[in-house]
């Protein structure tokens, strides 16, 4: 399909109307995609699925946008995942992420084509890029959206995101400024099916990066940081061991699970008596009263002396072979099984 007339039409329009006219003249839904290792990121596919669904609702086109070096070939993949047209900015200058360069490229394209909606993923790159881009375009940004929809009566993008530690959702719209930009929180949107029968147009855009260099120098892509330890009373995620873990090897599984979840290790009085944890890691009567968002009790019976310490935990997961153990009655997720087997399986599932 040949879309070349489209740009001409818009340019004609622009000459007749003031650019700043609100809402008018902005059409189509864009997805700024991300790639790695010669493939589109799963988050980009999620955004594509969402864009396609909304575009079908309003009756507009989906444009994919790719920036980088050697990414042109992935334009076809974006078509297969729902794009009608893909604009590819393929240039060595874009091989590494540079905030100002990426903003310039996308902003220039936006100025040229005027999408009504622009979607990015709330990835490391997206979180860095989207606000700067929105500021350049003097438009609103709904960040970390977990839900998007179209208000058909007003033709507005409706974005919902979490606040207050995820306990409350806020829903907003951007009534006048264009484009309406949103970043999508990874994992909240369905990945669509790849349809290699879809056809569309992949256009490599001409870039105007005259004399502009990015200000970031990426020095070392594989360094490490040492994070300060999180005290138990402040930990949001706690993985706790009871005597049911059996021995030091069993306890090591608990430590691995804590690491995989980004949490802190704790335990019952029994775990302390076994010598696996220190006194400062006891939860319950001999130790601390904690209020984590997630508490995973492994091989713990959870009598009152222990439960006392976690009664204000928001979400309790218990893994215990005995389904009548006290902890299983108060857990939000009671997993009947041997933690020594369930934890390794969980580690696999977590990836």
């Amino acid at each position, binding site marked *: 399909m040949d879309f070349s007339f489209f740009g001409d039409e818009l340019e004609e329009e622009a000459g007749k109307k003031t650019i700043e006219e609100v809402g008018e003249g902005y059409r189509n839904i864009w997805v700024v995609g991300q790639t790695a290792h010669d493939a589109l990121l799963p988050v980009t596919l999620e955004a594509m699925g969402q864009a396609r669904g909304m575009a079908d609702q309003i009756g507009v086109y989906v444009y994919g946008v790719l920036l980088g070096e050697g990414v042109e070939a992935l334009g076809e993949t974006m078509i297969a995942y729902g794009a009608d047209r893909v604009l590819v900015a393929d240039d060595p200058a874009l091989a590494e992420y540079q*905030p100002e360069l990426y903003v310039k490229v996308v902003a220039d394209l936006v100025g040229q084509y005027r999408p009504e909606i622009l979607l990015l993923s709330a990835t490391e790159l997206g979180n860095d890029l989207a*606000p700067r881009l929105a500021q350049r375009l003097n438009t609103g940004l709904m960040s970390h959206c977990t839900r998007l929809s179209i208000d058909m009566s007003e033709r507005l993008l409706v974005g919902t995101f979490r606040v207050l530690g*995820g306990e*409350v959702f806020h829903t*907003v719209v951007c009534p006048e400024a264009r484009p309406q930009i949103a970043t999508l929180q990874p994992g909240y949107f369905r990945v669509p099916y790849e349809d290699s029968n879809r056809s569309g147009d992949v256009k490599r855009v001409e870039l105007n990066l005259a004399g502009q260099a990015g200000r*970031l120098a990426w020095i070392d892509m594989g*360094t490490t940081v040492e994070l300060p330890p999180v005290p138990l009373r402040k930990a949001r995620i706690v993985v706790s061991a009871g005597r049911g873990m059996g021995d030091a090897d069993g306890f090591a599984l608990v430590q691995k699970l804590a690491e995989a979840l980004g949490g802190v290790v704790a335990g019952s009085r029994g775990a302390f008596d076994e010598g696996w944890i220190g006194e400062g890691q006891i939860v319950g009567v001999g130790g601390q009263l904690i209020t984590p968002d997630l508490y995973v009790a492994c091989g713990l019976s959870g009598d009152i002396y222990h439960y006392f310490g976690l009664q204000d935990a928001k979400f309790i997961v218990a893994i215990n072979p005995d*389904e009548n153990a006290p902890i299983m009655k108060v857990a939000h*997720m009671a997993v009947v099984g*041997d933690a020594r087997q369930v934890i390794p399986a969980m580690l696999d599932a977590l990836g």
Partner: protein
Amino acid sequence: MKIIVPVKQILDPKGITVRRDKERIFINREEYIVDLGSKAAIEAALRLKESVADAEVIALSMGKPQADDALREALAIGCDAAYLLSDKAFKEADITVTVHILAAAIKKLGGADLIVAGRESSDTGAGQIGPRLAEALDYAQVTDVYALAVADGMLQATRPWAHSYAAVKAPLPAVVTVALEAFPPRYAHGARIMSAYRDWNVPVWTCADLGLDEAALAPLLSFRGESFPPPIEAEKFRGDPASVAQEVVMALRLQKVIG
């Protein structure tokens, strides 16, 4: 080196209970605190100040008159100066308006070598202030920083990138946003706490002081409503370890308890 830290005052979440079953937010105790992102930013700025000769840290807060307390706390923790940007005209401000106001204040202060903000605020978590400010001021930007140093007019930062951490360099002036968990805040010295309220001054800058046109303060986003996740219902899982584990991990993700 002049370092400016935007500071946000929020309602203390410890005084708030969210009842999903009642779909309501109950404010049991109305107290205000400095948000955790701002505290991490102040900490990062103070560490930088200690590592270089001759640096000053200035705290700025856009808010209601009571945000004065947040700035007094910033002074007590170690900032050298603080300014409150407050005006009735700022009442409906969203993020874009806030950035507009902050940028005006920063310009009034003659710009900065470094702006340090939290990666996101601990209440709304939008994470937009840093990069927006960087664009408004045409500064370089590095977000989600876990380690930070300045030398010879260059900023060196370490940030998560592609399943690892990357070290990047950027020229000053720059905006950095810092990870909350990387900069645990220090305690304020008792004497500074006393002085913050008794001896020191927090000037208030109004819309007019900042030379802002009230017409430019219209928010771009419009609030449609709040909603709540469903109440947590207890579930039991049983079966072979592999399938049970899959179910549990999926359920945890569905419940948005883990990422």
